[in-house]
Structure formats: C-alpha cells, structure tokens
C-alpha cells in the first residue's frame, strides 16, 4: 500500500475507545490525508474536515481532529509533515460549535429578564416594604456606616476622611434654621445635620435622619432662604424614608449586578455604570414628593418656597449645562417642572420672612473657617445634588 511517490510518516492516533495510542502511518494525498492503521486498514480525512486543536503547550507537536468526530485525535510530531498539512488543510482553524447559538440566546434572554424583574420590580418593592418596618435604631446604624464611608471616599488626601465643620456659631445658625422649620412632628427620630469641609455644591440625606451639607453649597447660596429650601427638601426625604429605601435597594441590586458581571476588572466598571444608571432613574417620584413636602414646610415657617426654584435656576445659569452638579437636573425633563412647581407654591398675597438674620447667615457661611482658609478649591466633582450617594 505504500505508494512510491508518497512519503509515509509515523504519528499517534487516539480513537477514544481504549486508553491506548495506536502507532499509525500517515501520508498526504492531493485530496485527503490518509491514515494507515497497523492492520492495513486506511482512514481518509478530507483536507477540509481537518481541524487543529488550539492553544497547545507543546509547540513541536501538532494535534489534529476530524470534523464530526469529537473523540479521535492524531498526534503529529514530524515537522516536515506538519508543514505539508498546514499547506493543504484550509480549515484548520475553523471552530465547530457543539452548543447551538439559539440555546445561548434563549438563556441570555432568560437571564436578562430574570435580572430585570429582580432589580426593577422585586428589589424595589421589597425595599419599600422593608424600609417602612425597619426600626429607627437599625436605620441609624445604616446611616452611621454610610456616613463614614462617604467621608473617607470624598477625602482626596487619604488621611481618614473629610473634616466636619464645627464652628459653634455656624452650627447654631444651622440648628436655628432647623428649629424654625420645625418638622419634628413628621419624623420618627431626631435629625442630625453635618457640614463637611468639601467644595462640592451638594447636600443629601442618609438613613436614620442624618443630613449632610457640603461647604460648597453654603458658599454658593446667595441667601439663607436658599439653604433653608434645600434643608426642607432633604427633611422631606427623611420623612418619606427615601435614603433607607435606596440603601436597601442598592444592597439587593448591587449583589445581583456583581453576579452578572463577575469580579474581574472589566466587571467593576460595568457594575459601577449600571448602578449609577439605575440610581439616576429611580428617584424622580421621590424628588417631586420631597419638593412638595419642602414647599409646605417652608410655607408654614413663612419662608418663600420660591427659594428652592431660584436656587436651581441660578446654579443652572451660572454654571451652564456642562457643570456636573446641574448637568443632572438640566438633562432630565422635570427640571423646569420643579422650578415652576416652586413658583406655584408661592402665595403672592403673603409677606414672607427671611429665615436667618445677617449675622447668623455670615456665621453659617463661614462655619468651615471662611473662604480664605478653605482647604481645597478644586473643580467640583460631578455629583448629583440632593440625592444620597450609595
């Protein structure tokens, strides 16, 4: 059977029947690779059905398989013959998928649907229910944890957290503002207000009645009523337990998203982006509700509710759309609604007070030691205002 013009070379064949390698001879013909078995039988592998097993560690060895035969392997060590095989077989790198793509797509759809139902329906529903029944001590503990995490996260020096501003005159002014608004009847627990020495124009509420103001917001406000308006808005979030619900919600949905994207570097980014998107889209109703609450609270204290609208409006004009803190508001359609809602809440026949006298307002603005000594004046990081971060 050994033709004169063909060159027979030894190779090893595993047929997937017994744990034994068969020493065979192979030869290249124009149309196929011929495998000569020791008993004289011949196997023909057409060139286009030949596949090379990829990612093999031993670079001197070529491992060949045959389309439609998942078990058989041919181990070819002869370098010359390897070159001939590479020249003749055109589909060595082709991959024959054993798993049907339709099945993958089906389960991918199932996975996406299941994750969507859990993140957008089940987890929010449960978070709302659980936030209602979480005891105040539990909420406080949740808030304490989050507060420390935020202080550390915002600190650019990496030395243990952003400073809390505690100038007594300034904190007294803030407390006076709170007392004037007098929301205690609506609250399950006492509210604690913190002012952080950070240039960001922002304020947010945390679970358990912690309100956080940044120095940047106090400096940006033109009059105490604007700060009072923000304060009233944040108290609104506390009354409706929005921060607690958000914290519980992100605890549930972050876990699920982590599952989906895995733990590797690429996953972290996807996870972060996805969570930001979810958070950005879900609290519109909560924002409107907190605004309504703020309007009532301000009206009761005889402060013009318009302050809430004017503050947004002015920030928008001053900083333009590009600036991070307004970008969020500028981009979503309720921005103008919110401003006009604030204007609608104004009673034109009434003569409104201002919430602080000039001296207290100065004290409040310099609670962190005044502009001159402010520790950092870098550009404000883009951050959504009036929302709690996670």
């Amino acid at each position, binding site marked *: 059977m050994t033709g004169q013009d063909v060159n027979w070379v030894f190779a090893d064949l595993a047929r997937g*029947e017994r744990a034994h390698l068969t020493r065979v001879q192979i030869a290249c013909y124009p149309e196929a690779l011929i495998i000569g078995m020791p008993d004289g039988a011949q196997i023909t592998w057409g060139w286009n059905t030949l596949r090379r097993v990829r990612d093999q560690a031993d670079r001197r060895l070529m491992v060949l398989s045959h389309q439609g035969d998942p078990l058989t392997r041919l181990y070819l060590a002869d370098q010359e013959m390897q070159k001939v095989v590479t020249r003749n077989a055109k589909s060595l790198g082709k991959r024959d998928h054993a*798993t049907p793509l339709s099945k993958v797509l089906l389960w991918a759809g199932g996975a996406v649907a299941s994750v969507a139902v859990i993140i957008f329906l089940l987890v929010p529903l449960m978070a709302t229910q659980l936030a209602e029944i979480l005891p105040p001590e539990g909420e406080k503990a949740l808030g304490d944890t989050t507060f420390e995490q935020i202080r550390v996260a915002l600190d650019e020096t990496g030395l243990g957290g952003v400073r809390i501003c505690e100038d007594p005159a300034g904190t007294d002014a803030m407390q006076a503002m709170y007392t004037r608004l007098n929301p205690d009847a609506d609250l399950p627990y006492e509210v604690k207000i913190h002012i952080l020495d950070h240039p960001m124009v922002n304020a947010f509420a945390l679970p358990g009645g912690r309100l956080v103001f940044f120095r940047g917001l106090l400096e940006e406000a033109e009059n105490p009523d604007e700060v009072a308006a923000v304060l009233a808005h944040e108290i609104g979030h506390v009354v409706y337990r929005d921060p607690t619900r958000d914290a519980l919600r992100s605890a549930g949905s972050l876990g699920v998203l982590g599952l989906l994207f895995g733990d590797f570097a690429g996953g972290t980014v996807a996870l972060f982006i996805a969570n930001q998107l979810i958070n950005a889209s879900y609290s519109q109703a909560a924002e409107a509700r907190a605004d309504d609450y703020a309007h009532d609270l301000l009206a009761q204290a005889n402060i013009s509710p318009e302050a809430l609208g004017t503050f947004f409006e002015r920030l928008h004009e001053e900083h333009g759309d590009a600036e991070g803190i307004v970008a969020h508001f500028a981009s979503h359609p309720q921005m103008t609604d919110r401003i006009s809602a604030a204007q609608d809440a104004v009673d034109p026949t009434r003569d409104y007070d201002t919430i602080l006298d000039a001296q207290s307002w100065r004290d409040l603005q310099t609670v962190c030691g005044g502009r001159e000594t402010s520790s950092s004046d870098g550009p404000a990081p883009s951050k959504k205002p009036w929302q709690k971060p996670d």
Partner: protein
Amino acid sequence: MPPSTLKISYAGEKGPVFWLALRTGILTVLTLGFYRFWAKTRLRRYYWSAIRPGGAPLEYVGDPLEKLLGFLVAVVFMAFYIGVVNLILMYFSFALLNANFAAYGLSFLGLTPIIFFAQYRARRYILARTRWRGIRFGLEPGAWGYSWRSMVHWIATLCTAGLTWPLTTLWLEKYRVSRTFYGDRRFVQGGSKGLLFGAMRHVYYALGLSAAATVMLALYENPAWVLVYLLSGPWLIYGWAYWRAESFKRMTEAKQLGDMQFTAKPRPWRIIGIYALGGLMMNIVLSGVFLVAFMALGLAVGTTDLENINLDDMDMAATALVPVGVLIYFLFIILTRAMTHAWITLPLAQHFAEVTEVVNTQNIAQIVQRDRDEFAEAEGFAEALDVGAAI
C-alpha cells in the same frame, strides 16, 4: 509489553503562557468581562496540554459557549437568591443587630452551602471535559453530599482552630477521588485518618514555638524572647511549603486506578524557590513599569509652559486623566495576573507534574471509554460565585 511506568513530562513555557494570559486578559476587560469564558477555556487548554503522562498530552475540551450558557443558567437562579436574600439579610442585620458586618457575615454564611455545591459541580464539569489518550475523565454526581460534608468538616476545623485541617483535607479528597473515573475505571483514595498529620508537622512545630515564645514574653517581659520569632516565622513558611509538598505526595501515593498507582516526590524548597523568585521578578517588573510611567508623566509636565497655562486646558487634562488612570489600573491588574501565570502557576504545575509517575501501567489499554456527561449549567454556579478553579 508496554513499559510499566509512565513518567509525566511538562511542555508548558513561561513566555507563551504570559502572552496568552495577557491577550485574553485585555480582551476580557474590553468586553466588560464577557470574554472571560473564552479566556479561561484557552488557558485551561494550554495548562492541560502541557501535562504529558507518557508523552501524550492531556486535553481540555470545554467549550466557551457551553460555559457562557452554564453561567446564564446559573444567573437565572442565583439572581433571585442573591437579590432577595441579600436584601433580607441586610434588613435583619440592621433591624436586629444594628450593624453592617452581620449582613456580610450572614450573607456569606447563607452562600456557603452553594459555594461547596458549586465547587463540586465545577470539578465535575472540568473532569468531564478532560481527556487523556482520547479517554474521558468523569466525576459521579454528588454535589449536595459534598456540600453538607464540607460544612461539617469546616465547622470541625474552625472549632479546633485549624488543627484538624489535615483530616478535613483527606476526607474531602476521599469523597471527591472515590467518585472520580478515568474511562470505566474508578479511582480509589486510600489512607488512614492519620495520613496527613505528619505532613503538617513543621507548621505545628513553628506554631508551638511561637506560642511558647509569646507565653514567655508575657510572663517574663524579657525582649530577648522576641528573637524566637525570627526562627519560628521562617519555619512557618517552610512548614507551609512542606505541607503542600508532603500532603500532595502522601495523598497521591495513596491513590489507585485499577492496578495503577502513583509516586510523587515534590520538594518543599523548590516550592519556596518558585514563590520567592516569582515574587522577586514580579516586583522588579512592576517597579520598572512604575518608573517608566513616572518618567513619562514627568516629561509631560516638564514640557508644559507653566507661565501661560490655561485653566480650561487644566480641566480638559483632568477629564482626560480619569480614563487614562482607569486604563492603567486595569493594565496593572492584567499584567500582574499574566506574570503570576508565568512565574508562579506554571512553574508550580511543572514541578508537581515532573515529580509524579504512574506505575504498573501494563494493563492500561484495557480501560475503555465512558459516556459523555452532558451538563446543562457547566460550571456556571462556580463562575457566578467566583469560586471556580483559578484557571
């Protein structure tokens, strides 16, 4: 008559595995993590094919699409569990205990049965997709049995401060190995209860010495006792390497497959050497990369005209720096992983492979093929929980 002993040769090389890990790592980041099924499959193909008992390479035949499918199947079930259970645990830990760590602890505790379950299933998948000489390996079903046994053994280990770890290791290995097949032939893991305690002896010596020194230090307040730690610290490291080598040797030599048996002679000092050299090389390379990065940064700052700097440009530069920083961070992780493959994982695999021999192989050709283990969820649960094998 075939030779009655098969030596295991090793064909893996540092360079190729480094580039393979680097390339697949970059692709994984670029695809937001979804290439990881392909990355893992390719690395496994490489590592498996490097091990050549009797000159014939092992082959890993797992299909990345199959792994992706398995992962999706696992997500459908796990998403519910993780989302709802995490939320409830978080609620209870704050409602009852007013603390966060309890939520993490409870959440982890709630997951442990599934983690062990997933590990066994992953092993079953990997063995079902491993072949040598064209014959499949296999693992019998039994993941829940493995799960509860693991829990019991782990609790026992924790209660004894880890002193019974050798017993736990052997018992769990027995459970797994006596359900493992090569073709139609079942593996047997022998060894009495005390088999592995001797392998832990240097750890016990070092811990005993440290404990004695601590007691003396507390009693006599003589700072000279601190010097004992200089001895017991390195001894502990040696003890750990000795444990890895000796427990492997003892368990391997107590395994049987039909008439076949195994011998192994791993060397503790070689293991320490691989880690020391690998760690040193990785430190040198990473320091070099940092140095070059700093010089590039210095050059960029140096060429800037500080007199006429434009504040808008500064803002632009700061905005541009964030993605660059993120990119460098990922490159750093990928580079570290690739180097770990080249300088630690591969040399260790090489050492353990080369010191192992299969003996009494004269009847090996009588072993016949086993059926394919179809496996809907592949190692999806392990993938989802991130507890799969490192490669």
